[in-house]
């Protein structure tokens, strides 16, 4: 995906919400885009998913096709507020929505819906009303729904919002799975954990790339700092097991 001098302005706003912005995302790449509140992350997601017109500039894919000519459902977008993208009354009904528009037979719709329910361990919740689910589960249903539409590029807008450890674990597995399949991923958010997951990180500020992203804590830095602080400089490659053994040798009681 190639963004070439992309500018987006909202009516009645002096400064553009986004741009001028250049970005090239290679096929199969995972890019993490972060930045302060209001920096234009969600606007970028709206532009890339084709729901917002560009004021100027151009977005094309590798084959040179303009964004307006991309196939329906090619860009899957998991929104920040998951309930905002749900229409079906039950979990299964909502997940079946994308396949319904993108498949030619009902059998395909059922197969894709069933596979998404299984993948996200939502089989037992298929018949439940989406309104009766907690925020975390709703997020998971939104993820499953996008998975069911089988997009080429997936935008995850703050995907870890309201997920507990189980949900986060599944999300990470899903992202790994997508990466193995060669899907192109764009993660928007604040949590530094995505810096480790992504191939590269870009920082937006007031709609343009920040030249100096400033110090952003990486989870592993904390670990390095801990190990260095306890055992000295040459021990930063020690694994969790090795460090544990050095501190308190012995077997786990549990």
């Amino acid at each position, binding site marked *: 995906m190639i963004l070439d001098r992309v500018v987006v302005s909202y009516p009645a706003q002096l400064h553009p919400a986004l741009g001028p912005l250049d970005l090239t995302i290679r096929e199969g790449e995972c890019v993490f885009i972060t*930045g*302060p*509140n*209001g920096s234009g992350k*969600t606007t970028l997601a709206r532009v890339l998913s084709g729901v917002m017109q560009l004021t100027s500039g151009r977005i094309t894919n590798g084959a040179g096709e303009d964004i307006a000519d991309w196939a329906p459902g090619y860009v899957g977008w998991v929104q*920040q*507020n998951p*309930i905002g993208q749900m229409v079906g009354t039950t979990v299964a009904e909502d997940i079946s929505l994308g396949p319904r528009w993108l498949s030619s037979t009902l059998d395909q719709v059922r197969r894709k819906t069933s596979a998404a329910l299984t993948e996200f361990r939502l089989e037992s919740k298929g018949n439940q009303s989406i309104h*009766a*689910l*907690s*925020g*975390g*589960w709703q997020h*998971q249903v939104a993820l499953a729904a996008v998975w069911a539409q089988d997009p080429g590029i997936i935008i995850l807008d*703050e995907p870890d*919002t*309201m*997920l*507990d*450890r*189980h*949900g*986060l*674990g599944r999300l990470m597995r899903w992202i790994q799975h997508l990466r193995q399949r060669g899907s192109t991923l764009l993660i928007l958010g*604040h949590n530094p*954990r995505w810096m480790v997951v992504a191939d590269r990180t870009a920082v937006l500020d007031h709609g343009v790339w920040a030249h100096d992203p400033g110090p*952003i*804590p990486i*989870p*592993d830095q*904390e*670990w390095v*700092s*801990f190990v*260095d*602080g*306890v*055992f*000295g400089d040459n021990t930063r490659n020690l694994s*969790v*097991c090795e*460090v*544990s053994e*050095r*501190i*308190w040798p*012995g*077997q*786990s*009681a*549990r």
Partner: protein
Amino acid sequence: MAWPVGTIKVPLAGWQVTDWSLPGPGIWGLAGPNGSGKSQFFSQLVAWGNKPQGLRVGLVMQNPRLQLTEATVWDQMTWPFQRGWSGRMKPAVATRAEQILAEWHLENYRTSAPWELSGGMQRRLALASMEILAPEVYLLDEPLEGLDLEHRVLLDTKLDQWSKTASVLVSSHVWQWLLVHTEWGWWCDQGLTWGRMGEIWYQHGLSPELPLEALWRRLLDKGAPVTPEAWANLERARNEVICICQNSHQIPSIP
């Protein structure tokens, strides 16, 4: 001083607590898996008839948008204090509203419509418009969501400030943040279980996400003398481990 609340029913999650009371000023944690009824519990706490007479409880919901009901950011901050049809209010309220908006970095958005703000700004406005009401009990449902790093730090400062005079009950999925800010709290799963947040993390925290967290779980499993919540604070974790190593003379020199 604790606030006796009594029986709270959480119908959708299918559980209830009896003789429940909220401790006095401080920050108290609420952790639990998705769907365990944390948000419903918060909602029940502010329901008419559930909260104790005279207790001033304020809730900031998980989805702040439903709490932003006014046409401008300024009105959102001040409407509860406006009196009569003309909406007059005391000058002190206006001064305080300006001050709080500035503290939450929203002073330039006074005339903006709340629904035009970004997700993180809406969260800040929801928190700011609760702060001006100065409740005795803050119920914050996933307050970190949508906040960038700068404003997470600001929230931490605010929490410390509020907790001097008010009870602050916070729910979050981010264990590291919960353990740094709360010492005691509840585990929510088919009911509420009171305990030290460190213990709750150790019992229910599931697979670790961070290496330091994984190390701590391992050390606790082996019976090492570390406090469960210490991993969340790098300095504290390092000091505890250095102390252990010094006692067993495993490290020749301490950096």
